[in-house]
């Protein structure tokens, strides 16, 4: 029981954390905020379902296709919509409003394209459970956990070791200096939005088999991912992971031992308490002004 709970908590935490990393990445790179991350996850799930179930593509190919498309979608939102707003001198709050509008468009668009029913994502593995140390665990949960860990490591090495990742960090810190060195700052910002959306979309594909795929699936996950990002220290990518795992554990263990009906009440009450006592989050983060 305990191991099952821990794996469940880690999986949930990884989901919140990865989607939350996207919020942090966008905030750090562009000083802006999106509220559409959850719906990016939902679109990723529907696209994955279409590729895997409807078109019969191999799972890995479906996942990769979703990542490419979601990256392009995130980049499009920043490069075309957000940039044109900012070019008109719009304030940050209009950009946030724009992302809420995008979130609505995505949800309703998904309803138009795929209908309003909960769709079942077919099982990816031939077996319904695997045995780990005597516990039966759904292999899709392990997949979600695995994809989460791989994505985190990949993002970490990309940001820390690759030239483009380093330039994204540089541009986030000092746009003027980065421009003067020949770094294409608009491109680094667009890439940050693209990566954030790609993370959410790929998580959508792996949670599809666990939660089912429906148009509202992203909203609650998106809010909890946002909460994770705030608790971890908004703008700190690694903080979001810690925040996500924190929420994953609270939610899983509250459901298991206290009440599953009011787990969100308790999770979000904790969010408010953390905000009051630690206004900069668990990890203090300095963000570009």
């Amino acid at each position, binding site marked *: 029981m305990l191991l099952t709970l821990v794996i469940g908590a880690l999986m949930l935490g990884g989901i919140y954390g990865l989607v939350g990393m996207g919020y942090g990445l966008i905030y750090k790179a562009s000083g802006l905020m999106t509220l559409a991350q959850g719906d990016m996850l939902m679109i990723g799930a529907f696209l994955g379902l279409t590729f895997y179930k409807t078109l019969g593509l191999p799972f890995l190919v479906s996942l990769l296709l979703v990542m490419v498309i979601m990256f392009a979608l995130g980049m499009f939102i920043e490069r075309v919509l957000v940039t044109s707003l900012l070019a008109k001198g719009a304030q940050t709050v209009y950009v946030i409003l724009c992302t809420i509008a995008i979130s609505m468009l995505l949800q309703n668009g998904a309803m138009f394209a795929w209908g309003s029913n909960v769709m079942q994502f077919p099982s990816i593995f031939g077996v319904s459970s695997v045995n780990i140390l005597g516990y039966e665990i759904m292999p899709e949960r392990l997949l979600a956990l695995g994809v989460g860990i791989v994505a985190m490591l990949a993002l970490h090495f990309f940001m820390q070791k690759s*030239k483009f990742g*380093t*330039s994204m*960090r*540089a541009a986030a*810190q*000092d746009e*003027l*200096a*980065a*421009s*003067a*060195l*020949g*770094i*294409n*700052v608009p491109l680094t910002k667009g890439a940050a939005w693209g990566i954030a959306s790609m993370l959410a979309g790929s998580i959508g594909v792996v949670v599809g088999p666990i939660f089912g795929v429906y148009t509202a699936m992203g909203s609650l996950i998106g809010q909890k991912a946002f909460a994770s990002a705030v608790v971890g220290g908004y703008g700190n990518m690694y903080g979001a992971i810690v925040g996500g795992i924190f929420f994953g554990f609270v939610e899983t263990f509250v459901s298991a031992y206290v009440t599953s009906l009011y787990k969100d009440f308790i999770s979000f009450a904790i969010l408010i308490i953390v905000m009051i006592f630690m206004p900069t989050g668990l990890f203090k983060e300095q963000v570009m002004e």
Partner: protein
Amino acid sequence: MSKILEVKDLHFHYGEIHALKGISLDVEEGEVVTLIGANGAGKTTTLRALSGLLGRITSGEVWFMGERIDNQKSHVIAAKGLAQCLEGRHVFGNLTVRENLEMGAYLRKDAAAVKKDFDYVFDLFPRLLEREQQRAGTLSGGEQQMLAVGRALMQSPKILMMDEPSLGLAPLVIQDIFSTIKRINADGMPILLIEQNSNAALKVANRGYVIENGEIVLKDSAASLLTNEDVKKAYLGGQ
């Protein structure tokens, strides 16, 4: 000698404010040219406009290595070899010294030449080699200035524009910075230098321009400017 950089009648507005009212200047191969003037005269605006960091200019032309570059994007201009050390150093504090220098070479593909430039920069500033893996934010002001200069050199530029490299530094460190400027120039780098420390700037420069209220009011050899009575009175502490 051929002209590396030539600016013709450059005008720039910050909104309604007419900040640059027809700046014309040029830098030839191998030269150090300085632009001196009071705070707010338009020195920084001039350099940033040349680098394309301020967006569109109002009118005028900027020619670099025989090519017109005004109103091009800043990263395109930087790629052509026009490097700038910004006022206030602007190092990436959260990146290591090494990463800062790598960002200088961001656009370059010639790995062997980049490695040679790393050696050149570390030879110029041995202190940076000692601090290679340290975060730039932990360096002293003088070291950050060295890093800013080194980072610009990593671009392998055709000209180096420096905005107030001595600002806020201790007198001994300022001496170092100016002897570095001389050495970089002796190694063949043309330099366009902006300074409030006009005396020191004119001493390393071949020629100078005096800017007042967005206009060039005087241009001459650095030696003549150093002895010019008006310049002495206004910019050299009246000695």
